[in-house]
């Protein structure tokens, strides 16, 4: 029966809840994000392709895939070609470690939270490499900003991730979800501050307003993505959409109890979708609210406010746990 188990594992990696499923919801969330953002701004948003424009992200992806792929002669070819592929694999790999259908993820081991943090750092480094290998002045600036921004948000984000991990006594995302399910308690209740910090840090990770500094359109064209076109750009755009799924999925798993809920009849996948959708709407709403920060304001603000607050959250949590066990 070994081959059947193997086939099942292969199918679940490739189709559900693996690559194809993730790509589909990534494109769906892109549509949700665009529609909601447009609605907030009193416009329609995508409406033409498919019912209510739901196929617009697919159309955009196909269009980009079919377009001419221009490679400037001055670019550093190997890195320039590798970056789009690698940047797509990072969020996909990380998503395998997040429970989507039940309390267990596709891949789960002790310490996979650290691995996810590592993968997210790699995304920033890849953005930097992409900008650097383009040798375009705007790309270089954008890449440097991406790296600099990562210095700002990584630390508070990682520290805030520790809150749920301390509660569950484990560094595995699946175990944190199981702890929340078995205690019937969402980690957000004990980590409200950490939740807020993670949302802000993810806005920066996702390069969204007010932290769209590495791709600030009016300043440096498209930042580190400036020179990418055609298939490469399609992969990068898909990677950014997957990052949105990763961000909302990770926050769901760590703070909102993952794909479990108080009503047992509703399957895990539905809980996952509901919770991540709410998070996507929160991200879109925040995107519509703010003006873009400057890179120096972002980094210094992050170290001045986010880092102390995230440490404060951990201290408070420890004190609370100490008091409870006492």
């Amino acid at each position, binding site marked *: 029966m070994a081959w059947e188990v193997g086939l099942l594992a292969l199918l679940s990696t490739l189709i559900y809840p693996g690559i194809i499923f993730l790509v589909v919801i990534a494109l769906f969330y892109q549509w949700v994000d665009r529609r909601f953002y447009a609605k907030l701004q009193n416009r329609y948003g995508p409406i033409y392709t498919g019912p209510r424009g739901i196929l617009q992200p697919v159309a955009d992806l196909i269009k980009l895939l079919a377009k001419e792929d221009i490679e400037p002669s001055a670019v550093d070819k190997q890195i320039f070609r590798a970056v789009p592929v690698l940047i797509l694999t990072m969020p996909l790999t990380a998503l395998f470690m997040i429970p989507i259908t039940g309390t267990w993820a596709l891949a789960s081991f002790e310490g996979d939270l650290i691995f996810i943090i590592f993968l997210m750092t790699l995304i920033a480094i890849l953005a930097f490499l992409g900008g650097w290998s383009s040798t375009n002045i705007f790309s270089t600036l954008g890449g440097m900003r991406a790296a600099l921004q990562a210095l700002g948000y990584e630390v508070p984000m990682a520290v805030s991730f520790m809150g749920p991990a301390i509660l569950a006594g484990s560094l595995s995302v699946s175990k944190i979800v199981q702890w929340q399910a078995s205690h019937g308690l969402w980690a957000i209740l004990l980590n409200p501050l950490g939740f807020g910090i993670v949302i802000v840090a993810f806005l920066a990770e996702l390069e969204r307003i007010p932290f769209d500094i590495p791709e600030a359109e009016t300043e440096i064209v498209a930042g580190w993505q400036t020179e990418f076109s055609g298939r490469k750009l399609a992969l990068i755009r898909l990677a950014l959409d997957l990052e949105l799924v990763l961000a909302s999925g990770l926050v769901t798993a760590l703070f909102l109890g993952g794909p479990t809920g108080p009503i047992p009849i509703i399957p895990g996948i539905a809980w996952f979708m509901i919770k991540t959708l709410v998070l996507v709407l929160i991200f879109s709403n925040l995107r519509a609210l703010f*003006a*873009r920060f400057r890179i120096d304001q972002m980094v210094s603000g992050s170290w001045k406010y986010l880092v102390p607050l995230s440490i404060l959250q951990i201290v408070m949590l420890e004190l609370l746990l100490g008091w409870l066990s006492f």
Partner: protein
Amino acid sequence: MKNLSENTFSVPFGPQHPALKEPENFMFTVDGERVVDVKIRLGYVHRGGEKAFEARTYTQGLYLVERICGICAMAHQLCYVNNVEALIDIEIPRRADYIRTIIAELERIHSHLLWVGVAGHEVGWDTLFMYAWRDREVVLDLMELTTGNRVLHASNTIGGVRRDLTSEMISRIRKGMKLLKERTNYYKAMIPKERTLMKRAVGVGVLKPQDAVALCAVGPTLRASGIKRDVRRDDPYSAYDETPFDVITYDGCDVASRVLVRVDEILESIKILNYALEHLPSGPIAVRLPRGVPAGENVSMVEAPRGEDIHYLKSNGTDKPERYKVRAPTLANWPAVGAMIKGGYIADIPIVLAAIDPCMSCTDRMTFTEVNSAKSWQWSRDELRRYSLKWRGK
């Protein structure tokens, strides 16, 4: 990328760049994220407009002059008709004066609302952009109702205006102004409260009052440095001598002040409009004139939404001008931009540039600006020819 020294490199900004809606080139020398120096190169949209006037009759010139700038079309046209009417030496009907004032103020509202939106866009706040432009539609619809065109109104003719305001139009304008007043008051209250926007605007692109005067800044840029100067008050034209209004000044000298000056000016414009609609005299809207303009020369000034607009007209008695010269407000503001940008951040470039509400196509003509010494000069054709001969001789 060219290395000037170890730490600095130059970043080109334009002629094609998302922050610039029109092509111009700026070479920034930057050190990390800080701007050390800037060189401005104008002339990418030089269209030979002034020469084209010499080949067109005064009537055709009416519509050419609007095309200097799509947004301050009325200001340029007003300047033009003031020039021509001064040469013919006629008094136009008072009602026409009032209608011109009304259209000019509607245009100012449209231009300033547009600018508030662009300012939001430049700092990445597209939501403000969408809302400001949505509200601007109200003015554009009123423009279409009163003049027939949304922009490039073609509302003036030599000797008056082309369309009368009916009582239905007046009530529609009143209604529109009520709505806009409410919206502008909302922006006025909301903008200083939005901290991310203020973080990008307060203390950015500082232009000290003495610099503003020395570098000949005009319009809202100058008034945001606390200097009370406005052609409408200092040298009134049309009906501005009768309409009461305040010249808005702020003394923050930064981008935030420039935003607030413009928002307040919208409110002032609404005040002027309401007064003008109230006191609109009856009578004809235009006088018939013979074709042709007597020989002579004249200079006229108009306060365009972006600042003081100066036109010079020389006539030789035929039906075409001999020389027409335009000094658009944006041109006067370029030297000040150099002073504002130096020492700032790259990220602040778009908003500082946008803060003077630049209109490149207004500006591009034979003018030389040396930003380092903030000196600008213009050459006559002879001087230019001499220079070209000298240059070729090299």
